[in-house]
């Protein structure tokens, strides 16, 4: 009789389930595989597996000459190819001691900031899609399309541009292209308000993102998180301001940080919102650039035909849309570089995933992965 009166909870023992999310899954943003241990809807353990998109970027870079690396950088973070280009050419120029003409610097910043908007738009759209709202994705890509058109005018390519050159750029921006940038800004600025009305302050959206996947500032620092994800945790660290490169020290812009308006500081909503605010700052930067851009050369005419930097090593970091992209370049004075190491912001951000997904719901996991905004092309390289 006593044996029959076991606590009910013992009979209701539930098995944990091992389930593989990805590499083919709509919400892992590429070919990320997450091995989940789940107890019903609750995720107990997350193990990210990467490497499905590994293309030996760093090894290839050792064989193709200094200029030949530029197209490879396009293919790392393919949503921010301009910014990748930018970081790499600065690295080589620093080693060469090569100056970039004023106009070249302005065009570089214009392109980099347009790319930042395009990248944040993709992040915004896919994040909304992860949460079940399909329409913002289409809106975001409608706007991104216009940026792609401007890039196409400038360099003929729409995704992997290969536009920056050591010493400058591969081509000039004509007045028509600058006018296209200006008209895009006029078109785009009101759209940001529309996105806020449609998604940012939607009740369901806030319920799904506020207080979810909180990264406290200390944890963000410990895991080496950078970019919008770090700023969402409440600090205003931005390479463009803290370690300025190019002409960013001359431009006026604010650095939005997460304030925990809807939940806690560093939650998914903050990470999302920091990107939305950053797009406004990009527009500000672009307007200043358009007003200030001087006439002149777009590439330094003294750039050597064969690029052979002296022996030495250099580390350069730039602010990519996804965080701090670092290039560590070692040259031994030969036509090919000796070693190139890339510090990928996405790779470090992915590392924090197991730490913040303990005991979340399955749907929250999708939201967290989406809010980290990783690009697997850069994680694996």
């Amino acid at each position: 009789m006593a044996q029959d009166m076991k606590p009910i909870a013992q009979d209701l023992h539930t098995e944990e389930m091992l389930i593989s999310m990805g590499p083919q899954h709509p919400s892992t943003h590429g070919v990320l595989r997450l091995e989940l241990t789940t107890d019903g809807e609750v995720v107990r353990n997350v193990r990210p597996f990467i490497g499905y998109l590994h293309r030996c970027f760093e090894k290839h870079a050792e064989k193709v000459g200094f200029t030949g690396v530029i197209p490879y950088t396009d293919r790392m973070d393919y949503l921010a190819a301009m910014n990748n280009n930018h970081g790499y050419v600065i690295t080589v120029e620093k080693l060469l001691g090569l100056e970039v003409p004023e106009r070249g610097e302005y065009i570089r910043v214009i392109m980099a900031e347009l790319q930042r908007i395009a990248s944040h738009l993709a992040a915004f759209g896919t994040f909304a899609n992860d949460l079940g709202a399909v329409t913002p994705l289409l809106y975001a890509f409608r706007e991104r399309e216009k940026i792609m058109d401007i890039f196409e005018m400038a360099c003929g390519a729409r995704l992997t541009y290969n536009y920056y050159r050591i010493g400058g750029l591969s081509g000039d921006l004509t007045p028509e292209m600058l006018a296209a940038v200006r008209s895009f800004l006029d078109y785009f600025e009101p759209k940001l308000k529309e996105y806020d009305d449609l998604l940012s302050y939607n009740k369901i959206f806030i319920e799904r993102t506020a207080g979810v996947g909180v990264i406290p500032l200390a944890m963000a620092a410990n895991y080496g998180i950078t970019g919008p994800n770090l700023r969402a945790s409440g600090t205003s660290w931005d390479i463009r301001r803290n370690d300025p490169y190019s002409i960013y020290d001359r431009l006026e812009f604010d650095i939005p940080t997460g304030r925990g308006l809807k939940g806690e500081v560093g939650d998914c909503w903050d990470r999302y919102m920091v990107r939305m605010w950053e797009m406004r700052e990009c527009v500000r930067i672009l307007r200043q650039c358009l007003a200030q851009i001087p006439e002149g050369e777009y590439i330094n005419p003294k750039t050597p035909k064969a690029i052979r930097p002296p022996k030495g090593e250099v580390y350069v970091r730039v602010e990519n849309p996804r965080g701090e992209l670092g290039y560590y370049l070692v040259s031994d004075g030969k036509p090919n570089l000796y070693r190139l190491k890339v510090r990928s912001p996405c790779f470090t951000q992915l590392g924090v995933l197991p730490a913040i997904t303990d005991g979340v719901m399955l749907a929250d996991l999708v939201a967290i992965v989406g809010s980290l905004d990783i690009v697997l092309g850069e994680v694996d390289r």
Partner: protein
Amino acid sequence: MKEWLDGVIAGSALLQGAPREITYFLAMVFFSLLAVGWMAILALSFVWMERKISARIQSRLGPVYCGGKFGWAQTVADALKLLMKEDLIPRSADRLLFTVAPVIVFLSTLLTFAAIPFGDNLIIANLDIGIFFILAISSLAVIGIIMGGWASNNKWSLYGGMRAASQMISYEIPVALSLIGVIMYSGSLNLLEIGRAQAGGFWHWNLFRSPFLFLGGFVYFTAAIAEANRTPFDLPEAESELVSGFNTEYSGMKFALFFLAEFANLFVISAIASVMFLGAWHSFLPWQILPGPIWFLMKAFSLVVVIMWMRWTLPRLRVDQLMQVCWKYLIPISLVLLVGLGTQMWVFSGR
């Protein structure tokens, strides 16, 4: 129905000669085919509507080429494609359950069509317990969905099935509770009588007859969307979380059955809302300008458009929030509304 059929038989020399049972049987077959055809036409047109509406919301064009203009034949072409596709059954699936599941889902939706009045007396089966029949039959769908999720032998499908089970069973309660208000007020379970009682202008519609019914209408609409697994409550098939939920492993005609049932279900919930709250086949003025069925379809179609509009605007809720909405808000609200309605009826009508 039987009386009407008897009347037809009495009036026709040909049918009088035939045995009564065979005539009944043939009539049954005829009307079932009518229902299937009607449901298929509705579902196909809804799929087309959804494509066009979603496209317009997202500043796209949607289908334009198929069928010449407006891409009207796109869904027909898709249905043909699905019919001709290979009917895959995963090797490790439970073959019997896997095959039966879509049929159950489809049938449960199809059977509800029998009791929906499209106009005065325009009903396949005039049941005295019409609304009860619809509620009972449409809740069978959850069995099919769990079966499909389980039999696929896919973990994501199982998740979809589990979610469907908890969601659809929970949301049946607010659906039923909000409909009970109308039943109390009309004093009938017969959909024709509920409809007839709302004649004579929109202020006679159940929605506007009592503040409690007004709110009850919204409770019904919300809960019914959740029961039909539409966004923002489409968790069982959340494609960004569960790939495609319970129907991940389905292809060909089996998938088409799920698909048809989902879109036919859209019509069923809108039709019930129209009959129960929006004056069924009556015009919003005391004069019936257009024929009843047209009014009815107009109301049902507008509600379908509203559901589609919501789908392409809102994000999806999380599982626990979904349950919260049901158990913490909708059910208590509908219970309070019931009590309020009862009080109103007791005070004003002395019933």
